[in-house]
């Protein structure tokens, strides 16, 4: 944040994370390899959410609509119009930018709890629209893209290795974009708005314009995750527009550490495996408990609040590694 933060060390740390994920392609067993590709795309979703929630301090409960805007923008154009990946992916991003700009102009007139409710209501409208236009979207059942629709030049996303590298490429771009944004003057203004909006305004900043820019950037990043998800994994459906997909990025960011650049990835990784493993264990040893993954999430949140109140990386930064961005 401050000019005194060690620039080299920060860049090195982020490069190391990307390098580690790159190495994952060669060392991870098939199952975890597939899971990791998914986690990287979902971490992009979380990073986009973090920009608005963690850095700007705006708690949205409607980010599923931005993820879904990207997903349907890419998926529907690929499925119905036969657009190639090279056209469908940008279509998803443009859809996300347009939706987030429109929603931001309306929702940013409110603050606090009202903002949460307004974003949630809009997302609910988005979800209902995906059902209403079931002729094109097939609603909850969703649509599966033909293998031919998942080709980008020589790259075939039905191939796990290609898919993994594509996910990693998007992840790396968004990670370094986030890093650049939060270390730029713009990022400092977003944090200032989170800390004290009135003071920020009286320092001469148009706080509405800055919040608008943050929302559009956040929504567009989330849309890129949605578009990538549809094209890489070849499936898109209304489930991804439900309120659960608005809560999940919030959860991932809280677990990993709000307003940390690497927290969203760590949180996504931790929660994905926690739910995965605990479901396994519970089903094996207590088959008659019939516990949903929400139980695991609840326990994880209680432990988090007790031991890592600022999330894994947030608490790490507070106690030991102050230079973490």
């Amino acid at each position, binding site marked *: 944040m401050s000019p005194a933060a060690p620039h080299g060390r920060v860049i090195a740390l982020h490069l190391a994370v990307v390098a580690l994920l790159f190495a994952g392609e060669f060392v991870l067993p098939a199952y975890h390899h597939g899971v990791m590709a998914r986690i990287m795309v979902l971490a992009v979703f979380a990073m986009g959410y973090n920009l608005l929630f963690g850095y700007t301090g705006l708690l949205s409960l409607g980010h599923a609509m931005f993820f879904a805007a990207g997903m349907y923008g890419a998926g529907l154009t690929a499925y119905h119009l036969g657009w190639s990946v090279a056209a469908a992916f940008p279509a998803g991003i443009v859809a996300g930018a347009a939706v987030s700009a429109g929603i931001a102009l309306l929702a940013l007139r409110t603050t606090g709890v009202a903002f949460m409710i307004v974003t949630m209501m809009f997302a609910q409208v988005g979800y209902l629209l995906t059902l209403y236009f079931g002729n094109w979207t097939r609603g909850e059942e969703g649509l599966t893209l033909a293998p031919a629709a998942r080709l980008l030049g020589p790259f075939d996303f039905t191939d796990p290795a290609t898919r993994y590298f594509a996910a990693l490429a998007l992840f790396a771009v968004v990670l370094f974009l986030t890093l650049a944004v939060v270390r730029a003057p713009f990022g400092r203004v977003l944090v200032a708005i989170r800390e004290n909006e009135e003071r920020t305004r*009286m*320092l001469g900043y148009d706080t509405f314009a800055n919040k608008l820019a943050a929302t559009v950037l956040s929504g567009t990043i989330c849309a890129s995750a949605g578009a990538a998800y549809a094209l890489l994994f070849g499936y898109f459906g209304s489930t991804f527009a439900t309120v659960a997909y608005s809560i999940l990025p919030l959860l991932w960011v809280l677990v990993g550490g709000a307003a940390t650049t690497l927290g969203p990835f760590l949180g996504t990784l931790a929660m994905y495996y926690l739910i995965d493993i605990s479901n396994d264990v519970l089903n094996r040893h207590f088959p008659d408990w019939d516990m949903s993954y929400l139980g695991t999430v609840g326990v994880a949140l209680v432990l988090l609040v007790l031991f890592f109140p600022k999330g894994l990386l947030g608490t790490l930064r507070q106690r030991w590694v102050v230079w973490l961005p």
Partner: protein
Amino acid sequence: MAAMTPVSREPLLSVRGLSRHFGGLKAVDGVDFDVPAGQVRAIIGPNGAGKTTFVGMICGRIPPSAGTIRFDGADITDMPAHRRVLAGIAYTFQITSVFANLSVRDNVALAVQRRHVGGKGGRLSPRAFAAEIGAALARVGLADRAGETAGNLAYGHQRLLEVAMGLALSPRLLILDEPTQGLSDAEIDGFIGLVREIAGETTVLLIEHNMPVVMALAERITVMDQGRVIAEGTPAEVRGNRTVQAAYLGAPVDA
């Protein structure tokens, strides 16, 4: 006398008929007010007189119920607050309002970068940026505390940081709302020196309860009571004004 043509320069700040009502309460009630460039003007008056509301309208935090505000020859009555800051009006809060969770350096950085990113100052190299932050902190004597978290500073130091942020905006009109509230005597002496220094470069509007500070700094004093201006003049004039003594001071000021 008649031989000299009066130099008719418009004041830097010119307010006409400015009012602000909260429900039935006339917090500010039809105030006319002019400040020429370069002056240090004090506004005094009892608690609740409407001073904070009045300057709040000048800097754009509070929309007026009626009246006009002109700054540097332009009508700014409807200008949003953030644009007034760019036009040169800086406000330091009566209730200390620094970014408590950010470092002292980042607090000032936010003020400095406002002039340079999308402002008039042009882009700065990181080195020049850091130098400007250091200079603003040095002026208020906080240079060695740049790395501390602002919320951990002593109260008096937070007030000084607030002033440093105002200064870092290089304002043409600096509004200080009770800046010495809660400062120690030594800190007040330092503050008087600082304002004397600032006064050379910018116009200062000082709301202040501490009369020795007012008498030491103000070239002219405006006295407010119940939303109205009840007197205006040099320190000596105000000191001798019976209405002021009755309404506010209760006893002669030089006591």
